[in-house]
């Protein structure tokens, strides 16, 4: 058998080197590499949202350690990292969704357009109207498609009469790429749509409030590949008008849709750079280990 193999070019069947040889960098344990501050470009000029010295605690357990990060206007920034590294927790800091969890404590300075979002004067309801969120599992309300999209607008009084509301609902559904499929069935329940349609409905619902930033927490992880492709195409169109921060488990997705990528590891922000650079020439060892699949 070995005679056949040695005749095929390119395959090296030389015996292994002795065990005394020092192992190369690639095979060292991940825990040997230290994280001393964030490498790359976490901070940018004129950010849309920014965080400095962000710490998040769940009771006594600390989940996020000293994160400094800027999110630019009209860009898509992807947050990647292994499970439990804190990327969803950080995302929820940005629209104060962690307020709903009693044992969660957030510290640091966080701003939207330069204003402190955790200030005493800042109303979280108003913040969430400016910073919308799309969740991992599509969660349309058990109401009609029309009422789903119109809910936020009715809540905040964005339309003064029925025809304005109709226009707003139609515009949001068009922007979310769902209108053509549902335009004759607006009174049907939102929960009767397929998974991909439901997620687009949730995006339309978030857009209807006219936010400035849209946070997406693993929006396509519960969808099939075709629905995923639809949503990614949608994100590309949306970035013209909105700033988008997306948490994703799929590195391929991050590479496809985002302009900047932030890599989180065990609650610490390891590296932030242009997406191309992160995936072809990462600066930090841990980033390289992650994207080459040493661990997930």
């Amino acid at each position, binding site marked *: 058998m070995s005679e056949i193999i040695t005749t095929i070019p390119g395959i090296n069947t030389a015996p292994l080197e002795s065990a005394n040889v020092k192992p190369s960098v690639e095979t060292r344990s991940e825990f040997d590499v230290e994280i001393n501050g964030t490498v790359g470009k976490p901070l940018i000029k004129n950010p849309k949202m920014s965080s400095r010295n962000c710490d998040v605690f769940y009771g006594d357990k600390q989940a996020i350690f000293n994160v400094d990060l800027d999110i630019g206007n009209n860009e898509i920034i992807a947050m990647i990292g292994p499970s439990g590294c804190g990327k969803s927790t950080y995302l929820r800091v940005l*629209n104060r*969704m962690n307020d*709903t969890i*009693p044992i969660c404590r957030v510290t640091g300075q966080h701003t939207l357009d330069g204003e402190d979002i955790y200030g005493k004067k800042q109303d979280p*309801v*108003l913040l*969430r*109207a400016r910073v*919308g*969120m799309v*969740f991992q*599992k599509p*969660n*349309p*309300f*058990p109401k009609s498609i029309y009422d789903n999209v119109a*809910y*936020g607008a009715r*809540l*905040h009084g964005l339309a003064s009469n029925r025809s304005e509301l109709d226009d707003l609902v139609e515009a949001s559904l068009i922007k979310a790429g769902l209108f053509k499929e549902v335009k004759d069935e607006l009174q049907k*329940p939102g*929960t009767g749509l397929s998974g991909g349609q439901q997620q687009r409905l*949730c995006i339309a*619902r*978030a857009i209807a*409030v006219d936010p400035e930033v849209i946070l997406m927490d693993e929006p396509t992880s519960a969808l099939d590949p075709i629905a995923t492709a639809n949503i990614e195409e949608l994100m590309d169109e949306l970035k013209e008008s909105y700033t988008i921060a997306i948490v994703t488990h799929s590195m391929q997705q991050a590479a496809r849709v985002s302009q900047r990528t932030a890599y989180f590891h065990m609650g610490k922000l390891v590296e932030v750079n242009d997406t191309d650079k992160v995936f072809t020439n990462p600066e930090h060892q841990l980033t390289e280990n992650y994207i080459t699949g040493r661990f997930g």
Partner: protein
Amino acid sequence: MSNSTQIIQAGLKKRYAKEKRFRLYGLISIIISFAFLLTLLTSIFSKGLPAFQQSYVKLDVELDAEVLGISRDSSENEIYSANYSKVIDNGLRTMFPGVTGRKQKRDLKNIVSTSADYTLRDKIIKNPALIGTKQSYWFLAKDDIDVFMKGNIDRNLPESDRRIKDYQLVWIDQLLAENRLEKRFNTVLFTNGDSREPEQAGLKGAIVGSIFTMLVTLLLSFPIAVAAAAYLEEFAPQNNRWVDMIEININNLAAVPSIVFGLLGLAVYINFFGVPRSTPLIGGLVLTLMTLPTIIIASRAAIKSVPPSIKEAAVGLGASRVQTLFHHTLPLAMPGILTGTIIGMAQALGETAPLLMIGMIAFVAEVPGSILDPATVMPVQIYLWSDSPERAFTERTSAAIMVLLGFLVTMNLVAILLRKKFEQRW
């Protein structure tokens, strides 16, 4: 076959036999329960159905102006207080001449109920032109006649063992022969309030009293209970000692004997706040205390079961906590809340003990016109009638039970319809 398979096969017969026996036990249990239910319903219905019929007697009366003491032009007051009793008496004497002795004369008058006088009076008031004419009217028969007509007095017994004497039997037979004695649907049961005379006793007072009391209970307990449940689930600080104590106390209150709430009503509502006794208001207040824990516990379970993803979506869009509660949580929790409310209301409808201390276990003859009038409720009426000595009240007690059961079934139907309306699938 392997060794294990042989062991298994050997044990299979026993296992199947066990299963068969278990299923048999289950079936027997169901049959026994059904048998009890059937016995209960049959006994109630068989005893109560005769009460829906009432005996009436047709009499010819001469509306003589002299006997009455009024004329066609008399004032309303005079017509009201004319001597109708004599007119009826005369009518009876004409039909049965030769009745002598005070006892027999009195028994002759007792062929018709004491309400006959008022029946006649109401007819004359409506049409004074009848004065001076001869008319035939049907009057309510006395309860002894009615009991005999329904076959509950055996005419073959010796006279001293019967309530109906031989001479009365003669009259009854004559009336029957002349088609002047018949049974009709008992509308009195639903148009009159309570009365000492069984043939005049009706459920209207108790039904209206129950409706008023239930209304007060529902309007008070439902909002308070739902608000308390919503607060405890959504807004109260978790793991707080005081909140935990409140929760424990609410759960315990659901098991407190209901008469204690009656004592509380007496001490606090009547003595301290001066709420009038025996009214649907105080009855409703006491029953509210009793049903609150039931509805709170059911509502909390229903609110807890609303999926958090819906609430997160609402909060993410910028809804405040109260808006999330009213727009999403409560509508989705409604089926469970309504179930708890049905159970609570059904309990309250049948309660008698707490009403003891606040004065609703009483003989109330008038139909209440508002929640501040003295009233009684259906279970109390049943209890009072079951306590009465007259034979005719036996069937009326069962009839009242049937009406109460009908009430309950109707309430359940309404609540089930409401629940279906609110049920959504997500």
